[in-house]
């Protein structure tokens, strides 16, 4: 699956799609592959504040619990409640229908600290290399 060029990425495998001062946030295709079948999502309430680098929710597969870290700070304007009934969308469409939250950024400059698609793809290639040699 391609990593959209207009997104920004974190080392914890979240993506950010910034439009104006509102960012959609999700987990990457690499993250969903690592997790396996996603069965549960816990999202923050609309109106809550996210702080960059802090956990704001969890995505769980049958086997594993994965914390989701905020790539940027800001107020949650929307949470993707449809995922409560269809968490498997995170496996099938991680970069699209399975966005987790939308956040109104409190500091748009935070976005510049994130990786672009090229840098992220290089990062996951090195992660996969580590796995293979493990």
């Amino acid at each position, binding site marked *: 699956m391609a990593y959209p060029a207009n997104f920004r990425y974190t080392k914890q495998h979240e993506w950010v799609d910034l439009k104006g001062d509102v960012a959609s946030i999700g987990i990457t295709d690499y993250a969903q592959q690592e997790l*396996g*079948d996603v069965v549960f999502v816990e999202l923050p309430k609309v109106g809550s504040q996210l702080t960059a680098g802090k956990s704001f929710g969890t995505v769980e*597969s049958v*086997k594993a*619990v994965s914390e989701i870290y905020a790539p940027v700070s800001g107020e949650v304007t929307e949470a993707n409640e449809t995922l409560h009934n269809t968490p498997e969308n995170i496996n099938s469409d991680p970069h699209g229908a399975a966005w987790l939250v939308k956040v109104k950024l409190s500091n748009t400059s935070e976005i510049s600290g994130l990786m672009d698609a090229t840098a992220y793809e290089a990062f996951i290639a090195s992660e996969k290399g580590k796995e293979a040699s493990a």
Partner: protein
Amino acid sequence: MQSVNLPTIPELRKTPLNGVHRRLGAKMVNFGGWDMPVEYPANGGLVAEHKAVRGGVGVFDVSHMGDIRVYGDETSVSGGKAIGAGLAAVQHISMNDASKLAIGQAHYSALLYPQGTFVDDVIVHRLSEDDFLLVINAGTREKDINWVRENTTAFDCIVEELSDAYTQLAIQGPRAIDVMRKLTDANLDAIKNYWFTHGTVCGLKDILIARTGYTGEDGFEIYVPSDCATSEKVWAQVMEAGREFGIIPCGLGARNTLRLEAKMALYGHEISDTINVWEAGLDRYCKMEKGDFIGRAALERAKSIGLKRTLVGLEMVGRGIGRDEYRVCNEAGEAVGVITSGSPSPTLCKNIALAYLPPALADIGTRVFVEIRATKCEAQVVATPFYKRPRKVAAPQAAKTA
């Protein structure tokens, strides 16, 4: 300049099929020091593997399991002794009554510490009158073999570790028998649940074929020579024979969800060196009347004192998945127990768990709360096993002519 010795990282142990798993693109994990497949994403992953075993057939590489043979000198049996040294040793170190086993029969049992807690759980197979094969867990191999050796010195028996001699495959699911029929000339219908035989499998003579498993489903476990070429050949033939039945390779992830649904204990979780037989609810595999064995006296005392905790099944009521080591609270919010294994159940589509709770909270329907991160999530005590395989409906009998 002096050369520096880097600290050696203990190398993960590999089964003879490690290369096969890697070529299949399995997600590998360190399981008790073993490099094992947790799931095979290319075949749909954990849930697909779980469902294949419940509805069709799946194959597991369980070669990491250990094997200990305990047997007596044949002359001691034919010499008119009432009980052979092998049997006497097995009776001494395990809690079930091995004297009740027929040749060709196996049962669930456990090695106990003098405190009545678990060294490990084992499947005991009676190979002949005074010859037994104990199948043990991977993570406890060294501990178990040392324990068995140390505690059988008083008996005139031979203890042999055969762990690395076998590649063990578990072919599990309602169609497992159909796959096996294509691979062996043994009369599989004659092998009842927890019985075994020896026969030709994949052209290999004298292979142990047991109707056992760790999935709560019908199935077989076969023990073939562990050299890489033979192991890979047998794996390939099993996959080929199973193709028409939709066989897929299954990893430890599905093995865990399958055994949890069937309420089969996992060492280090439901049973350990701090949990005793009564707490674990394994009474029916512990034969106090068979005579003395290691752990018996402590179990006798424990029985008179009564239980402080007992293993129960939980089902989450609302959203939230109770997982291993999460705390369980009573209505007052006090932590009173702990989950030993918890997971979504792919068969039941519910979130289930096994937990130790005080007996006062063990009644079916009791409301408890599982601490999931910052939230206390409601759960209730339910009957176990969570899943029981459907009874085979007898095929209508053809009218017999006299």
